[in-house]
């Protein structure tokens, strides 16, 4: 600013801020807007103005400078480092945990086990997950004890000094085994099937009877870890007034506060969770993990305590994507119209429920695919196994069933000797179609999308897209011209 304000002149602070260079201001103050804002509302089926627009991100500036502060970049005076001892066995009864030797180590400030946790269970829907396994171990990644020490290395060495005596039990690893009634319950006396959903529409027996061909397909998907580039990280600070501040990579802080309050047995009002910028979540940071443990270590030591998952921790002790076992049976007429479809989904839920409820529901609702099927029966079960827990991950069950129903459609097309595109065009949803659960669908443009996609990549009906290369280049050139 070239004009210096004199004493008499009144300059609004807002104006000063507005006049500072935009790079300094951008992330902090949004541009001034006047209401009502004019928003272009696109017509149904019209592209929103956002599509094809160049966008930058407000946080991109600091990211590029390496100045974004993630949790591991923060530290506080007197901060300790925590490490968690993992069970390493899939299923066991814990006979004893001896922490004496670890506690006696120089530099070790506190050790906690399950018995120190006021309420040792939590979870976003079922409260079936212990903060630290105490009597029973349900999967190899279960924490059994935690250490806070002055350095990470001392904490790591202290873990080796903690002796846990296990009575190793036979784990349930196969979800189909787990489904059987005679299989011992992972969380006995609870049943292994902990959630299920059935969708019925029309009469499948009639539909199969009206079909020329009946085709079965069996599909499996594997467990997938989110692998956020930033591992789970937490810093907890318990203050002398009995309040705890937690810096966490947690995505859902309100939910997290409730879980922390439950496990620590203190009111929500005494818990402050600071969500910082997260280095990738993808659904894997949707629930608390070690936050209560760190809070307890901080309470015990009176010092801030930090913990960052190692990459192996990330794989064995955080949630993953549900593996699905998917059985499909479809009846079609000889010209490709689907008459009936029967589906069974078995979700490997791992050791704890986590977000299985949501995943199960979505997988089941979407399992028939975007196709008009008058006669449908879909059932889905999620079962416990002694494996790493499965939870939320981008799509909540949708990608798994998509793999199954689209592969199944290809198999049907092959059997009928039809173009895989045609069989989809015959069956696909259109404006006003009813979803399997009876919802009237609006703004449906699948047919158009399929045709346009097929044109763009030069679909020739056989799975080869070679003819499309030039076409695509042409389209791209046109698009560029339009945009410029």
């Amino acid at each position: 600013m070239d004009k210096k304000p004199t004493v008499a002149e009144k300059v609004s602070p807002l104006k000063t801020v507005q006049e500072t260079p935009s790079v300094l201001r951008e992330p902090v103050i949004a541009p001034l807007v006047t209401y009502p804002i004019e928003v272009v509302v696109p017509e149904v089926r019209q592209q929103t103005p956002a599509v094809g627009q160049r966008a930058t991100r407000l946080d991109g500036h600091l990211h590029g400078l390496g100045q974004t502060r993630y949790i591991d970049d923060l530290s506080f005076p007197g901060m300790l480092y925590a490490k968690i001892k993992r069970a390493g066995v899939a299923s066991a009864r814990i006979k004893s945990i001896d922490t004496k030797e670890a506690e006696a180590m120089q530099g070790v400030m506190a050790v906690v086990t399950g018995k120190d946790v006021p309420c040792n269970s939590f979870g976003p829907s079922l409260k079936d997950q212990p903060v630290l396994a105490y009597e029973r171990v349900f999967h190899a990644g279960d924490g059994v004890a935690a250490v806070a020490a002055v350095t990470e290395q001392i904490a790591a060495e202290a873990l080796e000094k903690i002796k846990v005596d296990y009575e190793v039990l036979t784990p349930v690893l196969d979800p189909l085994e787990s489904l059987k009634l005679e299989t011992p319950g992972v969380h006995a006396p609870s049943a292994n099937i902990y959630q299920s959903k059935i969708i019925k529409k029309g009469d499948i027996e009639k539909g199969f009877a009206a079909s020329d061909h009946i085709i079965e397909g069996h599909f499996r998907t594997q467990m997938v870890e989110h692998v956020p580039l930033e591992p789970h990280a937490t810093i907890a600070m318990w203050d002398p007034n009995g309040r705890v501040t937690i810096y966490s990579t947690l995505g859902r802080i309100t939910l997290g506060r409730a879980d922390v309050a439950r496990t620590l047995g203190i009111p929500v009002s005494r818990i402050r969770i600071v969500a910082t910028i997260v280095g990738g979540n993808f659904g894997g940071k949707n629930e608390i993990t070690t936050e209560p443990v760190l809070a307890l270590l901080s309470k015990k030591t009176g010092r801030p305590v930090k913990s960052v998952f190692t990459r192996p921790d990330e794989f064995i002790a955080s949630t993953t994507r549900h593996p699905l076992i998917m059985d499909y049976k479809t009846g079609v007429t000889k010209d490709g119209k689907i008459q009936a479809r029967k589906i069974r989904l078995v979700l490997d839920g791992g050791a704890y429920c986590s977000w299985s409820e949501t995943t199960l529901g979505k997988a089941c609702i979407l399992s028939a695919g975007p196709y008009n099927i008058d006669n449908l029966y879909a059932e889905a079960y999620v079962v416990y196994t002694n494996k790493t827990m499965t939870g939320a991950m981008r799509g909540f069950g949708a990608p798994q069933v998509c793999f199954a129903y689209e592969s199944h459609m290809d198999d049907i097309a092959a059997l009928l000797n039809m173009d895989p595109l045609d069989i989809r065009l015959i069956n696909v949803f259109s404006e006003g179609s009813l979803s399997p659960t009876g919802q009237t669908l609006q703004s449906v443009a699948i047919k158009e999308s399929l045709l346009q996609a097929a044109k763009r990549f030069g679909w020739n009906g056989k799975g080869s897209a070679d003819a499309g290369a030039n076409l695509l280049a042409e389209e791209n050139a046109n698009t560029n011209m339009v945009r410029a």
Partner: protein
Amino acid sequence: MVTVTINVNGEKRTASVPPETTLLRLLRDDFNLTGSKLGCDVGDCGACTVIVDGKAVNSCLMLAAQADGRDVLTIEGLATMDRLHPIQKAFEKYASLQCGFCGPGVIMSAKALLDENPDPTVQEIRDALGGNLCRCTGYVKMIEAIQDAARILRDEPVEINR
């Protein structure tokens, strides 16, 4: 304890650290240069990439003592708050980063590449980023940004190309 002196971002700095300290720990914990990130600690992800004597390396796989007496460049040495390096500018412009955690490593890899090869092909850029994992973006916009930065560094006119 070993005494390590490195020339980091043009400044001579010394610390006395346990011999098992990695260069990454030295930078982050002793020199408060937290721009370089720890993603895997075993050389797979490249979040810890820094440039030592002109070469991009995984600072999680180098002992601090092995860097004694060397020149180390980290993301913090590339720019000041208001004067960005062309690579950083291009990354911002193209929105090449989402969560940003991989960013410092990717940018240092790009910097080492452009120092050696001012006009890389897309294949060469891919090769240079082969050791940098990004879970958010899919790399496409990073590659565009690096090409853009290369043009700027070569003093060529830049047009938006998308």
